[in-house]
């Protein structure tokens, strides 16, 4: 007889992976169901958050604890946590678990270690999977040896360590079974580490780096050196990761496992068994863990597991087919049963617990693939998701195709979309058309994801192994009745149609925040909310770019207007012809480096009498600037002022050209040109206009000088070259974004505004001054 409360009474239990899906449920169940035990949580320090803070934020605030919180009251719950839960900072991927002296001292006093930390993602890079899944358990065992303690180590593994095989998979080590091919885990560790090093080296080869840089430039445009560098490095890291993911998948497949996860877990079991020394070990192997059957409440789930993305893609109409054998078994097990089994194994103690316990449903209460699909499709027919137009999405008929066919279809779809996308990317699009391209990108990412699901999970749906659960059932039989009630883990208790229709699907739909009601999408609500945030009086500064953000014009148009104002008809024609001929080279220069372009272009103002320019600029304000302005943009500037924000214009235009906008802004940062003694312009800039990352710096300096905070700044700009600025402020607003920026803005959830010229205004064909003021042409003054 195993009595759980007795078995764990007064025990100190270390739990790794407490912030994960199983870990959360485990901590909750122990706190609620085993009142007399103490928990030590081994949690990694986050990048910004200390381990203890992570316990608070990522674990104890989870809705799994709602039940406890309401039972004990808020205070009572905190009091209990303070009394029974200790957090130590540590990391299973480093030797000695990265514990400091104090943590080691705590660790030295424990009775049970439940190791549930793992990288469960099926597409982890090989090196990471090796460090965590393979070496993690071994490191715990070595630490115990080092500290000279022998706690009961309960290691959570997976049924899929059995690999790709048909027939029954017993509760024994793979290396003890008939299909062992004699892999040495140490060799795998060495090779994975070497591969990581090689890949890192390969990624730094000049050709590779040039390629990353090129791609970064293509993605960002002229965003300035620091942004480009950051992006390049990001691309390099991603490349390394992708290589290692592919390597993991390939290595696993080559030796008979569906993926790197199962492969490294299998070797991990082997390594642990070999290196455990005096530490008693029990292994618990769940199959596919899904939402809770009953505890802490039916349907409780944390994060997205394996089946959810597939089910949601199907419900969204994205995944029309998914490979699988209709009569195949899909081995799902609710998380609360896994947790109950772990607790029971721990309570049974090193002597009574089976060495390996599989927690799976396939052998005794199988869920057939066809039954799953039928239930899912009828459920979504009754409760459809809705698209952005508010129309219900009809779920497709499932045809149980082979994996190859689905992959081919998706690959083809991806190719088409990618081609269309790159075509659109290369067009000079802005505003709504650019959003189209961004939509296409979203679409491509969806297809890519679907393709990944098929590649990764397809194997699981085709898996025909049956996991034996003899040890599990014998443990079950040894439980007293009240423990069987409170710690139910008998897979036969699950009624699959009830589980799918009433527990799992409603739960994941709730979690996925998908549209489940008809009517138009609430994107406008989102925009309205972002607008309110942007105009909130708590904001302090609103910085605006000028060209294409507030005005559909540019420095060349300004110059042309001024240059032609006093020309006669023939001279005008010649001017227009000359400028058109120069346009391509100007454009090229502008694309390469904005500052160089401005310096080069502004030479043209040399020798212009400043007095005449100032007079002409006033006329230009009406004829060019206002005509081409975006009234909503101008209104926004004024709304910011009304809200008490400082408004700043940051532009590459010459200061006299934007003088007419003065009343809108508290501060105008523009290019300035020196004036000679004879009252003519020198053509040389005394203040170089800030571009790219210099704008971010400028705003930061301004904020510092004026005592404002960048997090309370709003920045409006139209181009991806303003990314550094966008990233520096708290509230970026992309105005009429070009394709690249539209895509970025969408990903980051930035406010996007589509501002247009007033449709009733005049639309001159060319930005040249109106022909007809005789007095001016005669030479004026």
């Amino acid at each position, binding site marked *: 007889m195993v009595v759980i409360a007795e078995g764990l009474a007064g025990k100190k239990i270390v739990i790794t992976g407490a912030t994960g899906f199983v870990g959360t449920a485990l901590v909750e169940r122990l706190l609620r169901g085993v009142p007399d035990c103490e928990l030590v949580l081994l949690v990694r320090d986050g990048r910004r958050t200390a381990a203890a803070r992570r316990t608070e934020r990522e674990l104890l605030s989870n809705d799994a604890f709602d039940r406890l919180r309401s039972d004990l009251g808020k205070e009572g719950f905190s009091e209990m946590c303070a009394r029974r839960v200790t957090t130590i900072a540590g990391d299973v991927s480093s030797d000695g678990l990265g514990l400091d002296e104090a943590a080691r001292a705590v660790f030295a006093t424990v009775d049970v270690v439940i190791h549930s930390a793992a990288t469960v993602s099926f597409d982890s890079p090989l090196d990471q999977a090796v460090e965590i899944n393979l070496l993690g358990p071994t490191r715990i065992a070595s630490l115990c040896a080092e500290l000279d303690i022998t706690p009961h180590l309960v290691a959570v593994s997976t049924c899929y360590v059995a690999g790709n095989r048909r027939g029954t998979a017993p509760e024994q080590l793979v290396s003890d079974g008939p299909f062992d091919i004699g892999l040495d885990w140490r060799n795998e560790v060495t090779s994975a580490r070497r591969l990581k090093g090689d890949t890192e080296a390969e990624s730094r080869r000049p050709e590779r780096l040039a390629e990353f840089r090129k791609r970064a430039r293509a993605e960002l445009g002229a965003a300035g050196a620091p942004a480009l560098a950051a992006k390049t490095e990001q691309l390099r890291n991603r490349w390394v990761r992708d290589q290692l993911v592919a390597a993991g998948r390939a290595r696993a497949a080559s030796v008979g496992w569906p993926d790197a996860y199962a492969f490294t877990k299998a070797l991990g079991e082997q390594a642990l068994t070999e290196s455990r020394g005096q530490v008693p070990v029990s292994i618990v192997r769940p199959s596919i863990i899904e939402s809770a059957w009953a505890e802490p409440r039916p349907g409780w789930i944390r994060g997205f597991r394996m089946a959810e993305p597939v089910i949601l893609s199907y419900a969204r109409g994205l995944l029309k087919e998914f490979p699988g054998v209709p009569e195949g078994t899909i081995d799902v097990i609710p998380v609360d049963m896994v947790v109950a089994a772990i607790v029971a194994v721990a309570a049974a103690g090193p002597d009574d617990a089976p060495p390996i316990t599989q927690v799976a449903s396939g052998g005794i209460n199988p869920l057939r693939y066809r039954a799953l699909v039928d239930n899912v499709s009828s459920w979504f027919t009754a409760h459809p998701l809705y698209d952005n137009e508010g129309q219900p999405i009809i779920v497709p008929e499932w045809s149980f195709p082979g994996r190859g066919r689905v992959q081919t279809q998706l690959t083809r779809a991806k190719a088409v979309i990618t081609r269309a996308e790159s075509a659109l990317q290369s067009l000079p699009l802005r505003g709504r058309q650019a959003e189209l391209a961004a939509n296409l990108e979203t679409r491509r990412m969806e297809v890519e994801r679907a393709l990944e699901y098929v590649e990764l999970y397809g194997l699981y749906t085709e898996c025909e192994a049956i996991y034996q659960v003899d040890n599990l059932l014998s443990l079950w039989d040894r439980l007293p009745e009240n423990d069987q009630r409170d710690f139910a883990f008998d897979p036969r208790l699950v009624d699959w149609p009830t589980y799918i229709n009433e527990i799992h699907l409603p739960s994941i739909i709730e979690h996925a925040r998908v549209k489940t009601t008809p009517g138009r999408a609430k994107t406008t609500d989102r925009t309205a909310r972002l607008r309110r945030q942007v105009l909130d009086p708590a904001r302090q500064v609103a910085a605006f770019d000028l060209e294409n953000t507030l005005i559909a014009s540019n420095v060349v148009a300004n110059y042309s207007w001024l240059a032609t104002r006093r020309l006669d008809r023939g001279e005008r024609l010649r001017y227009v012809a000359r400028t058109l001929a120069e346009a391509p080279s100007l454009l090229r220069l502008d694309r390469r480096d904005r500052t160089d372009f401005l310096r080069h272009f502004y030479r043209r103002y040399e020798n212009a009498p400043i007095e005449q320019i100032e007079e002409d600029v*006033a006329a230009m*304000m*009406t*004829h060019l600037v*206002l*005509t081409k*302005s975006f*009234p*909503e943009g*101008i*209104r926004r500037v*004024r709304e910011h002022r009304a809200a008490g924000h400082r408004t700043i214009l940051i532009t590459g235009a010459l200061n006299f050209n934007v003088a*007419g906008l*003065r*009343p*809108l802004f508290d501060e105008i940062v523009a290019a300035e040109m020196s004036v000679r003694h004879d009252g003519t312009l020198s053509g040389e800039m005394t203040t170089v206009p800030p571009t790219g990352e210099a704008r971010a710096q400028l705003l930061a300096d301004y904020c510092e000088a004026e005592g404002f905070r960048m997090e309370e700044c709003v920045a409006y700009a139209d181009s991806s070259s303003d990314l550094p600025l966008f990233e520096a402020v708290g509230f970026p607003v992309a105005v009429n974004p070009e394709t690249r920026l539209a895509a970025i803005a969408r990903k980051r959830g930035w406010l996007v505004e589509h501002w247009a*010229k*007033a*449709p*009733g*205004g*005049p*639309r001159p064909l060319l930005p040249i001054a109106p022909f*007809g*003021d005789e*007095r001016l042409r005669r030479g004026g*003054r």
Partner: protein
Amino acid sequence: MPRPGFVLDVDRSTPPMLFWHGERFSLERLPADRSRVIYPAEPLPGLADPDAAIRQALLQPLDMEPLPSLLHAGMRLTICFDDASLSLPKMRRPDSRQRIIEAVLDMAAEAGVDDVHIIAALGLHRRMHDYELRHVLGDRIFDAFHPSGALYQHDAEDHANLVVLGETDHGEVLEINRRVAESDLVVYANVNQVAMDGGWKSLVTGVASYRCLSHHHNPESLQNTRSLMDRHHSALHHSIWRMGAVLRDSGPKVFQIESTINNDAFPSPFDFLSKREWEWTGRDRATFLATSKALDRTPRRLARRIFHSIEAPYAMTSVQAGFTETVHERTLEHVHAQHIVPVEGQTDILTMGIPFISPYNPESIMNPVLVMCMGLGYLFNMYRGRPLVREGGVVIMTHPTTKEFHPVHHPSYIDFFDEVLADTTDPAEMSQRWERKYAEDEWYRHLYRTGNAYHGVHPFYAWYWGAHGQQWAGRVIIVGGDPATVRRLGFTPASTMDDAFELASEVVGRSPTITHLHVPSVLVADVH
């Protein structure tokens, strides 16, 4: 002898009627036996020698000494003139104002006056472009006065150059242009196209400040202005005349010159516009068809440019000068002679075609706010006695009414449409909640003063202009307008005239009487 205006009863043989539809036209058949059409009078003959008539008026003014005897060397003379809101369409050169001001300047030169300022009395309207000043005043005046800065435009926001002349017994403050107030003589050159213009209104609105204008340009006054064309029953004009008395008693000496023009608003290619449909010749029909089809195929932007370039062959029908009040009474006689059409009784439905132009969009686009202003403000007010439509009746207009605005001329209109009309269409409410914010807005002030924008508060005034009509009509329907925009104005969109009649039947029953106000040209219905 030109034929007077008259009322045609529509029967089965009556051809379809011409409606303006912005920059286009449409022909609409009105239901027989219960519809009538009010036609304006044909153009009265012009003066044979306008320049001689002007000289005559200046030498023999009404209730004042002849102009030459008011002029002497060393004096400060200020000449004010109506801005681009008059006439519509713009007058073929030479404009009456050019003729008048040249005559005045000649006399001033003879008298040795050298301190002369010429000021465009634009009130809160937009500043005129140089080419508009040149068109109205002629090259000679423009080139002589503009470069030296002696020809300029009134600035209602230049507070250093505004002075308070006094208060009326109703507590209305008269605040006007300093130069005008401090002149020895102010001459005002008017073009009196409709009965609303002229009299004390010329100076009291043309060179006043926002503060001064807000005493009468407000919802209450305009709801009690019955009508704008009948100053004796207009709260707006009463207030202006009270201010006029202050100006008369404590202001500079004013020499008012008013000139009237006839109804000859469109040059020959558009003859069919002013003809009566059943009198159209084969040639008229052909021109109409050709013009109308061509316009349907012309982009609106281009059509707008064509229409705004039209110069009207107006002829001057009278000119009188002297003491403002006497002059204005004489002017009204002449205006009425051209405009008044006697009409028997009111009607259930009033139909009107809204043209491409209103006083507030010369060289620009008729935006939705101005459509309201033109329909319910101007055309609805073309009556004396009682409105053409009965109280609670229906007004049907035809206009494309798209959400388009001119960014240079009408910046505050854009925000007014998006912000204010989204909140309320009620003049009193908007006046309370929004008017001050727009009137005192720094950016609008900047654009009004340095650019060519109407004053920030102007869209409110345009809206108040229709306040009486809005209050009076039970429903307003716009045929062929953009539905969302029309709804924002508080009106009902209809796609065809038949739909409009159908919608109107909910308000006025199944067989209402219909009256169509034939535009162009201008007429004032004298409703008994």
